[in-house]
């Protein structure tokens, strides 16, 4: 099981701060997004936002990044600090 965290407006839109996903080792982040939408069709609009950002093990990453079981994955909207 892989743990996926959601923050800010994305968490509010999905109605949950985290979810566990079962995925094969080495699956890309893009495939993880597709799996989340398949598991939760009501999340399709929120998870399809083109500006959505991804972090793998607390580092910004791109959607082609291969994922491992023990990775901490986070999805969030564009950041607005400062």
């Amino acid at each position, binding site marked *: 099981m892989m743990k996926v*965290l959601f*923050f*800010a*407006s994305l968490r*509010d839109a999905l109605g949950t701060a985290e979810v566990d996903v079962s995925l094969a080792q080495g699956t890309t982040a893009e495939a993880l997004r597709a799996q989340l939408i398949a598991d939760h069709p009501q999340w399709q609009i929120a998870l399809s936002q083109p*500006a959505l950002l991804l*972090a793998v093990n*607390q*580092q*910004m990453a791109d959607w082609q990044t291969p994922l491992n079981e023990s990775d901490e994955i*986070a999805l*969030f*909207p*564009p*950041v*607005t*600090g*400062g």
Partner: protein
Amino acid sequence: MTEPALINVETYISVQHDDFDMAAEYQRLAASASCGAVVTFSGLVREFAKLSEQDAPKVTELFLEHYPGMTEKALADIVERARSRWPLGPVTVIHRIGALPLNAQIVFVGVASAHRDAAFSAAQFIMDFLKTEAPFWKRETADGKTSWVDARQSDQEASKRWS
């Protein structure tokens, strides 16, 4: 003539609820003998787009959410990238989280260097990437309603000037 090596290259990063003291932060940066320049920036809470449009209720508060754990790493990484471009002395980045009233201090970036060019550029660089890479999100409250603040395209453009 070669420049003396910068002796104090300490990076201080803090993500905190508490306010910060500009004078104290400046003193800490200015204490490095090899540095002839200190540039400091402070960002304040202001009203944001959606809820502050005409006839909209007044924004009374801003709430800063962050990604615990990643935030400090992202800020440290941005400072390291600045250090790889300019010879810097001590650098301080402080970002507040939680509920903040209008006009409160929200962010501090302070950079010391031997000369002003490096200090100005590095402070600008750090703020530009803090705005686009550090996982903070603002939510504003007006008349009991809350709304997430949208990211600005101009912030994305600003960070591109360094590539």
